[in-house]
């Protein structure tokens, strides 16, 4: 029953592609805003997805589904989840975060940090390039875990994770970032 409902939902959601181009973004935003019933809704795309998904999930499933975010998905509660894909991705993300943590420690201690070390899953580029690599690893992992899942809860979870990955990438804005940097580095009060 749930699968039938999810089939309807999954088939009507916009396809997600790991791209930064404006056209791709516009398509995703437009379709999801269509779900919200207005062209520029005040809520974010993830919230819109949560609300749509809530129509087809049980109460407890809604609670868990809404909790999923890129920031916390590595946590134990998700690693131990009964939803296979969620559990797989949470374990993957935890492992990825741990590798990144080791890389950061090594860099601080000046031991390594460039390509070819034990952490060679990340090539040393500028910070933006590194973040894009991380997003790519996450995307590739979720795609792999989502193989043969099309209309079940795992497919829905995979969709949400992919949406969050794209939204994180699309949130990187050079002008805004530079304004923030300039503000943070402005001259301090004389004599402070």
């Amino acid at each position, binding site marked *: 029953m749930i699968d039938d409902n999810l089939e309807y939902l999954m088939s009507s959601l916009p396809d997600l592609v790991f791209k930064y181009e404006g056209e791709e973004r516009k398509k995703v935003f437009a379709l999801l805003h269509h779900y919200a019933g207005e062209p520029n809704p005040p809520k974010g795309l993830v919230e819109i997805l949560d609300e749509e998904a809530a129509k087809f999930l049980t109460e407890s499933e809604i609670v868990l589904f809404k909790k999923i975010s890129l920031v916390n998905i590595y946590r134990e509660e998700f690693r131990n989840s009964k939803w296979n894909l969620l559990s797989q991705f949470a374990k993957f993300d935890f492992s990825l975060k741990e590798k*990144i943590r080791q*890389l950061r420690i090594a860099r*601080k201690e000046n031991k390594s940090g460039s390509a070819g070390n034990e952490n060679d899953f990340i090539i040393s580029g500028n910070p933006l390039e590194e973040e894009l690599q991380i997003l790519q690893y996450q995307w590739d992992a979720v795609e792999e875990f989502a193989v043969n899942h099309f209309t079940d809860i795992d497919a829905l979870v995979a969709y949400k994770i992919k949406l969050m990955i794209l939204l994180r990438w699309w949130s990187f804005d050079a002008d*805004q970032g530079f304004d*923030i*940097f300039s503000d943070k*580095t402005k001259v301090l009060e004389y004599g402070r």
Partner: protein
Amino acid sequence: MADKILMNKNTLAALKVELKEYRESLPIFEMKEQQLVGIVRTLEKDITRLDEAIFDANKKIKSWVAVMSEQGIELSDIVDVDQVISEQKEVVGVTVREFKSIEFKELAIDLLTSPLWVDAAKEAITDQVIRRTTVDYKKKEIALLEEELAEARRMKNALKEVFIPEAIEFIRKIEIYLGDVERLAIGCAKLVKKKKMRKKQAV
């Protein structure tokens, strides 16, 4: 001033003392001017070098600064200034504040949950804040030194163009006057002596 000056030996002596003092002061102000010019030039070069470094850093960071717009990351939680350390010092008689360092707050960054870019951002922000603050302090130092330089130049020019020439002129006038007075006195004395001698001869 020339109208009011008293044409006597006391005035002459005082003027000579003044002239001596002016002549002794002039090289002091000239040296002060040279020192201040040198220091200001050095500071200006430092500022140019730092401005170039700031520009280069801004240019370099533009390739990845987009990450700093990520939602949910507050840069103040990553790097925040505690205090600026500066030291008062005397530079050619001017009290200035010299920038020493900046103390940043010890903020714990969770290496597991915070994004990777945060480490590079912290370093970039820290370095740029130090550069900009250094430039600001140096600019303020230049402002103070330039005030003193202007004063030193005013004094030097006043001595060179006004006080010393004036004193020399007054001394010259008084010496001429006193010389004339003396010659007149000598002339008169000779005349009186001649008259006395003629009287004696007549008798």
